């Protein structure tokens, strides 16, 4: 069992910065965890921005489970650190 499993379970909903052993950096909010992976929901800071026409939302096909979020193998994680959360 990865030592990161309990940490992720205890911190669902918190924004984190994950560095994997191969050097990749992921930032996101811990969305869900299973025995092998942690799924991070992207945060605004990761987004490529751009300027739209006023529409911003997302409705997946009728109730299909969330298909998004970066899935990171727990065994591949080198470090996890909290990121400061923004409050209005």
């Amino acid at each position: 069992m990865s030592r990161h499993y309990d940490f992720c379970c205890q911190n669902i909903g918190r924004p984190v910065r994950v560095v994997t052993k191969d050097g990749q950096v992921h930032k996101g909010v811990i969305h869900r965890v299973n025995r092998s992976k942690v799924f991070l929901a992207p945060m605004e800071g990761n987004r490529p921005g751009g300027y739209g026409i006023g529409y911003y939302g997302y409705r997946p096909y009728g109730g299909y489970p969330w298909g998004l979020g970066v899935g990171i193998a727990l065994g591949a994680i080198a470090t996890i650190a909290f990121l400061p959360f923004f409050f209005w």
Partner: protein
Amino acid sequence: MTVHSTNKWIQQYVDSHSGNMADKWKYHKDLICKPVSKYFTNTSILSLQDHLLRHGLFPPSPEDEELLRKWLKKKYFQLVENLYEKYRSSWKGPSANIFIFPSNPFSRDLTEKFSGCTGLSYPKHLFLFLSNQAKVKQITALFLHEYSHTCRLQYFSKPEAEYTLLDAIILEGIAEYIVRKKLGEDSGNDWINQYSSMEAKEYYEKWIKPNITITRTHPKHDLLMYGNRHGIPQNLGYHIGYYILTQFTKDKEISINDILYMENDVILKDINL
């Protein structure tokens, strides 16, 4: 740079004939989003996929093959190519990577408020998300809106992280003004309120003015542009931008090319807010 052959990518997705939703998400990522991701080098493919979905890209669904086949038969590409050539020349605009995709048919907000058509622009890239029912005038309005962003972003070129809330507000106001000027008052976003001067001043003082210099990546930026949370009126930044432009252009003869490349301060100084 050009109108990319996204129809081929969509065809490949349709030809994958996957009935399994997990596979569909994978093909959606690999065949639709991955080819785009090489133009967004600082973003992971999953973040890009999520971002495009939130801005109107179709999501995978069990019945999407038939919908997408119908979409592929539409003559959207030639129309957009013609619009691009025309306005690139008349606005002395930049070349751009244009990506045309089907829009999300499951979003009521998108279908009802935006007639199923939406877009997203960058200094060098432009996305158009179109429904199966998109009309020529709607596509033209959307293209004018988005390409005006690309022109202005390119003209006042700086790293995206340095664009401010004021930049965004004026950008959106100009886009809406141009759409109406070119296509008539019945075009453009019909949900944009004509704020009374009292409302505009109240909202501007309360929400916009204290944050006018915050930049694109600040969390308050999109909150103030799109609103609908924390008591902020929906699409506040768009409404204020349109109010500023209608006030500025009132009783003036200004060409589209002049307004398109006008400094924010020139516009803002001229109106009473």
